């Protein structure tokens, strides 16, 4: 402990108390403000114990502990920037580690340790700065003590305390600082004093990710660690009837075959042996009489439901009487498929059970639920389960499962095998393994007046709830409405700005496992709302940009993003022959993103040439990181819009790998120009808000190019 600053435990204990007793299953989310983009959630938190968030070594190294997981979004760089500014750190000395699963690292707004909801930067903005500032104050006190001078005459710069011409590096002060009491208050710097915050900063994880040394969960290896693959049911919700593993056991390298709740696990020395062993299993599943989802039948069922009243999610005025004044009435039905997250790194989780507890190595977005689930399976206390978070080879929500599916299964495998085991998924397992963005059908009827202004807006949504049956049900489902199903519709400025409106929801029951997928409900609602608005603009013969400006005139942040994107794209100015524009703007996770897509359609093929993005996320802590996330969102959303779809036939998932679950490739990547609105507004997220406007911007451009309205995703061969 000599090289660590050992601070008062007071605030640590206080924050521990927040979750004491309730950690295992009662995931109370005291400030479940996920949908409001709360920027100041940390205000109510006690000052952090700085040693939970950073360690200073005698060698001057500054190790920042990440309470959140790095999955590409850049928090490995952004959170250290927050500390570095307040600490006056030497940036070249900064190292980063994922924090363990522990109460000190619970999300300042959600009450569990989680990376999701595009919330890391805003939710840690105060806590990480405070940790830096508290540590700096301590180091100043330590220097004052060593020099026997008042603190007031000292300053800090680039990793050292300075007194006139004398200098002590932070590493030289660690010993003294560790004897001191933590300050009880601290003053944070003013924005004009920031050296890092707001400046484009290169990633700290770049070097190890380009030379092959970065460790992902998949890369965890140690003596005695075996590899398992699990044979799972081909139809969700069905059980194993019988297994003949005699041939599997003969495969060289196969060690054991064990039953687990999700199926049959083949444990082997290597992946290749586990795979061959699994292929040699003879399995029978109890499929008789079980519901077998079929995409064509589901579509009919959803379409029928969309024409019936559901549970009311929003209501104002009187739709029926207002509709009588209508000049035009537009009715449209939109269909969106199940989607797989398909992160590049297939799921995996290494588990070692010992007399003392359990160690888990994995890439996860939700340590608390994984820890609780593992503890429950093993009859341990949560703190006996150590989670070693590795780099995530993509998350997009798939690695944030409240049901802890892949971690629970890996724990079951290690428990049944009696060996340390890394359970790995193939790509086929991932594509067929469920936890999809749910399929949705929206049906909307909008009545317009003479000027094209909506008089009445009725919309019904049909789709599975991603929250039902999870520990979040209590706080995220109110009066039968899963807030994530209707976000982007029930709170849409267009709907709320229409005096007479009504939003209904049918939450369909199914055994198909569903989960949040980058931008959650906004991944479908953004497409529907911004396509519908385009329909309304055309029905009332107005320019789509001008029409939106009129409806959003009381929404300055929407307008700022919309106007910046339109301006930078040269809206209204000529384009090369055959190229057409579409526009969309959508708020999600506290940020406002507008996009203009430039598209041509030739022989039924959609080509997106350029996407101009404007985002108002409040303060952009790392502007280049914001740009990277906008580029990423365009690519992720464009692949889905053009070609991704999970479908069912006779109860089974049709797709299996990247040849039939198609995602965006280099040849289809448009040029992406990103512009950040200079904004002093509340901070929002950046990981997800770039996703929702992309599909409608492209589809609206397709309409401009062809006159065909895309009301079903993916676009696929609809234009052929």
């Amino acid at each position, binding site marked *: 402990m000599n090289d660590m600053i050992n601070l008062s435990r007071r605030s640590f204990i206080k924050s521990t108390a927040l979750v004491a007793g309730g950690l295992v299953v009662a995931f109370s989310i005291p400030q479940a403000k996920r949908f409001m983009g709360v920027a100041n959630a940390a205000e109510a938190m006690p000052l952090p114990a700085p040693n939970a968030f950073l360690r200073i070594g005698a060698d001057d190294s500054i190790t920042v502990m990440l309470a959140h997981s790095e999955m590409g979004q850049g928090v490995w760089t952004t959170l250290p920037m927050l500390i570095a500014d307040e600490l006056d750190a030497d940036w070249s000395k900064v190292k980063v580690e994922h924090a363990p699963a522990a109460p000190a690292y619970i999300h300042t707004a959600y009450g569990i340790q989680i990376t999701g909801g595009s919330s890391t930067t805003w939710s840690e903005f105060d806590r990480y700065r405070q940790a830096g500032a508290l540590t700096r104050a301590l180091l100043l006190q330590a220097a004052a003590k060593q020099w026997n001078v008042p603190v007031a005459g000292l300053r800090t710069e680039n990793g050292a305390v300075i007194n006139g011409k004398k200098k002590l590096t932070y590493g030289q002060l660690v010993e003294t600082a560790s004897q001191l009491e933590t300050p009880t208050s601290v003053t944070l710097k003013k924005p004009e004093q920031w050296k890092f915050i707001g400046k484009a900063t290169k990633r700290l*994880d770049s070097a190890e990710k380009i030379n*092959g040394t970065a460790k992902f969960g*998949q890369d965890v290896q140690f003596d005695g660690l075996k590899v398992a693959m699990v044979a799972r049911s081909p139809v969700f919700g069905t059980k194993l009837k019988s297994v003949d593993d005699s041939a599997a056991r003969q495969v060289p390298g196969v060690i054991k075959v064990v039953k687990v709740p999700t199926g049959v696990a083949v444990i082997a020395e290597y992946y290749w042996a586990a795979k061959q062993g699994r292929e040699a299993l003879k399995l029978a599943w109890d499929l008789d009489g079980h519901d077998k989802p079929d995409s064509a039948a589901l579509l009919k069922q959803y379409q029928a439901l969309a024409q019936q009243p559901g549970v009311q999610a929003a209501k104002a005025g009187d739709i029926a009487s207002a509709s009588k004044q209508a000049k035009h009435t537009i009715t449209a039905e939109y269909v969106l498929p199940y989607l797989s997250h398909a992160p590049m790194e297939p799921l995996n989780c290494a588990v070692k059970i010992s007399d003392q507890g359990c160690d888990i190595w994995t890439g996860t977005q939700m340590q608390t639920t994984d820890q609780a689930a593992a503890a429950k399976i093993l009859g341990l206390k949560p703190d006996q389960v150590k989670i070693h978070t590795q780099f995530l080879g993509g998350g997009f929500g798939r690695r944030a499962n409240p049901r802890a599916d892949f971690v629970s299964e890996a724990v079951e495998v290690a428990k049944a095998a009696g060996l340390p085991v890394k359970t790995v998924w193939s790509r086929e397992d991932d594509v067929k393994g469920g936890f999809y963005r749910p399929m949705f059908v929206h049906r909307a009827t909008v009545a317009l007046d003479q000027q094209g202004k909506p008089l009445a807006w009725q919309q019904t949504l049909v789709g599975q709830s991603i929250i039902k049956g999870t520990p979040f049900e209590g706080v995220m489902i109110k009066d039968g409405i899963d807030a994530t199903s209707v976000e982007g519709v029930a709170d849409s400025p267009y709907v709320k700005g229409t005096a007479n409106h009504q939003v209904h929801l049918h939450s369909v029951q199914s055994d198909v496992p569903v989960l949040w997928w980058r931008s959650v409900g906004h991944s479908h609602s953004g497409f529907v709302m911004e396509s519908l608005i385009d329909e309304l603009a055309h029905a009332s013969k107005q320019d789509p940009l001008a029409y939106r400006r009129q409806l959003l005139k009381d929404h300055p942040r929407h307008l700022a993003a919309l106007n910046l994107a339109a301006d930078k794209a040269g809206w209204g100015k000529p384009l090369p022959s055959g190229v057409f524009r579409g526009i969309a703007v959508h708020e999600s996770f506290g940020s406002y993103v507008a996009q203009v897509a430039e598209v041509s359609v030739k022989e039924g093929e959609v080509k997106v040439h350029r996407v101009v993005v404007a985002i108002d996320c409040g303060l952009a802590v790392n502007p280049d990181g914001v740009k990277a996330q906008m580029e990423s969102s365009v690519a992720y959303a464009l692949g889905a819009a053009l070609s991704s779809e999970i479908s069912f036939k006779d109860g089974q998932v049709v797709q299996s790998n990247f040849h039939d679950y198609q995602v965006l490739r280099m040849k289809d990547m448009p040029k992406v120009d990103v512009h950040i609105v200079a904004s002093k507004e509340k901070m929002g997220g950046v990981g997800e808000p770039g996703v929702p406007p992309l599909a409608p911007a492209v589809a609206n451009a397709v309409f401009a190019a062809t006159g065909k309205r895309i009301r079903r995703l993916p676009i696929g061969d609809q234009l052929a």
Partner: protein
Amino acid sequence: MKLNINGKETDLNVSDDMPILWAIRDVAGMTGTKFGCGMAQCGACTVHLDGQAIRSCVTPVSAAVGKKITTIEAMQEDKVGQAVQAAWQQIDVVQCGYCQSGQIMSATSLLKQNPTPSDADIDAAMSGNICRCGTYQRIRTAIHEAAAKLA
């Protein structure tokens, strides 16, 4: 079985049909080369076999006997590999990073065959490498940057 990995003769106890990917990762313990799809669809497993970019997830070790396997771990000693890695850092290409070993191996192979690739050349050479974080625009820029540095 004797395999030449990054210039070293390595004796690995593997069956003929084991894909090079798993021999490198699970048996030789070199984890820089990644598993993404297992059917040559995503390019995460790209290595060079006698200088040619191949998908190691579908190429059995028997095909590598008497040939030279080069992986991401050796790119720092390769002039073109170095330039590509430097450009990747300069442009800040990576996000989650999982696909980047494969991207760099494909890009290095491209630049060795075509020192001045156009965007169309890049699209053709790199479309077998999927990046779910969508770093494609920066990859394109970084390849041009590396090409310029090498010229």
